C-alpha cells in the first residue's frame, strides 16, 4: 500500500515539475514536439530510476556506514553524471535520430535538478531500497506526464491566435503556471 501511495504522490500530487518546480529547463526546452517530449521523458525516467537504485546503496552502505553523509551531494552528482553519460552513449548507439533530436538537452539531464532533488528527497524521507526505486520511477513518470501534457498544449498553441505581446516564451510560461495551478487540485488527496 505504501508503495502505491509513494507512486501516486510522486507522480501526481507532488509532481516534481509542477509543484516543486524542479527540472523546468527541459520542461520548457524540449516540450515543443510531442515525440521529442516523450523520448526526453523516457530518458529522464530511465536516469531517475537508475539514480534512485544506485544512490540508495551508496548512501546507506558507504556514506552512512563511514559516517560521512555530508558527502551526499558530491556522491549523487557523480553518480548522476555517470548515468547520463551511459544513457547518452546508449541512445547514440541505438537511435541516432533521437540523439540528434534531444541534442543539448540530453547531457543537460546531468544538471536537471529534478534528478538530484529526487536523490535528496529519497534520503530525507528515509525510504528503503524498494521504496526509493519506486519513488525514482514515479518521479520520472510524473516528469514525463508533465512534459507530455505541455507538449500537447504547445502543439495546439502553434495554431492558436496568441496576442503578440504573449507570443513565444511568455505564453509558454503562462501555460506552465496554469498547469501547476491545475495540479494543485490534487493536493490534499493523500499525505506524503
Amino acid at each position, binding site marked *: 500500500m505504501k508503495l502505491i501511495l509513494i507512486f501516486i504522490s510522486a507522480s501526481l500530487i507532488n509532481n516534481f515539475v509542477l509543484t516543486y518546480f524542479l527540472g523546468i529547463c527541459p520542461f520548457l526546452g524540449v516540450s515543443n514536439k510531442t515525440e521529442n517530449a516523450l523520448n526526453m521523458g523516457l530518458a529522464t525516467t530511465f536516469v531517475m530510476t537508475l539514480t534512485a537504485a544506485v544512490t540508495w546503496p*551508496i548512501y546507506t552502505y*558507504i*556514506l552512512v556506514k*563511514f*559516517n*560521512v553523509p555530508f*558527502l551526499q551531494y*558530491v*556522491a549523487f552528482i*557523480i*553518480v548522476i553524471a*555517470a548515468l547520463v*553519460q*551511459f544513457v547518452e*552513449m*546508449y541512445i*547514440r*548507439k541505438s537511435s*541516432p535520430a533521437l540523439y540528434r533530436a534531444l541534442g543539448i538537452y540530453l547531457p543537460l539531464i546531468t544538471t536537471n535538478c529534478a534528478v538530484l532533488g529526487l536523490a535528496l528527497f529519497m534520503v530525507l524521507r528515509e525510504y528503503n531500497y524498494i521504496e526509493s526505486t519506486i519513488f525514482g520511477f514515479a518521479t520520472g513518470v510524473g516528469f514525463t506526464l508533465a512534459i507530455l501534457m505541455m507538449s500537447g498544449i504547445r502543439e495546439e498553441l502553434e495554431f492558436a491566435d496568441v496576442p*503578440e*505581446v504573449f507570443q513565444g516564451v511568455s505564453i509558454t510560461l503562462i501555460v506552465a503556471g496554469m498547469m501547476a495551478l491545475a495540479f494543485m487540485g490534487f493536493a490534499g488527496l493523500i499525505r506524503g
Partner: protein
Amino acid sequence: MTSNIVIISMASMGGIGAVLSLFLAYADKKLKVEEDPRIEALLNILPNTNCGGCGRAGCRVFAEALIQGNASVSGCVAGGQAVADNIAKYLGVEAGNATRILAVVLCRGGDRETLKNAVYKGERTCVAANLTGGEKACIHSCIGYGDCVAACKYDAMTMNDNGLPVVFYDACIGCGACARACPRNIIEMHPAEHKLFNYCRNKDKGAVARKICTVSCIACTLCVKDCAVEGGIEMKDNLAVVNYDKCPQDDQPTKRCPTTCILFGEEEKMTKEAYYASLPKKAV
C-alpha cells in the same frame, strides 16, 4: 579524528569515481559508434561557428548533407570561396562560384533625418519598442536600439552616431542573424552583386512619408524612368523596388532622386577601417 574523516571522504569518493569510470570506459568500448571519417574531415575545413547561414542547424549537419550530396559545395556563406574550394578538393567535385551574401540595412532615417512623435522609456530593445511603435513617426523605420548589432556574432555591425546600424562590408559573412533579429524586417540579405538599393521601407504616400522623414521614398517614379531597362525598377506600395534580374547595376537611376533614398554602391564603401576612420578624433 579530522584527518580520519578526510581520508575516509577521499577514499570513498575516489572509490565511487573509479568504479563509475571503469564502468563508463567499458560501456564506451561496447557502445562505440562508427562514424563516417569524412564528416570529421569536413568539419575541420568548415568554420565551425554554427552560424546557420547555410540554412542548416549547424556545421555538422551541413557536413552530413554534403556527404549525402544534399548540399551545395559552395553552400557555406561564412566560409566563402576559400572553404568552397577546400571542400570541393576534398570531395573531388567542381567548386563552382560561391556567392557572397551580405546584410543590407534598408533604412537611412536616423535620429537626424526622422521626426519623432513619442518618447519611449521602456526596455531598450527593438523587439520591445516595436510593440509600442517606437519613438519615430515612421512605423517602417529602424527603431535604433541595436537588436541586430546584438545578434551579430562576427563583430560586423555597430550603431553609428545617427542611431542607425552600420554593416561592415568586409566583416559581414552573410549568416542573416541580424535580418532575423530585426522586428521590422528592414535588414535584407543580398548577394554582393546587388549594388543598387532603395533605402526606404515606408509604404505611406509620398506627402506623408516626406513629412516624417527627409530621406524617405516618396514614390516620385523618377528612378523608374531613369532605369536603362524597362521594368528594371517598379513601384509597389509607394516604394521603388529594384528588379535585380533586369535592372543593370549602375548609378543611373539614383541621379535625380530628390530624397537620395535610392543609392548605388553604398555598401562596399563601409568597411570596418573606413567606418572607424570616419569617426571624429576625440582629445584624450
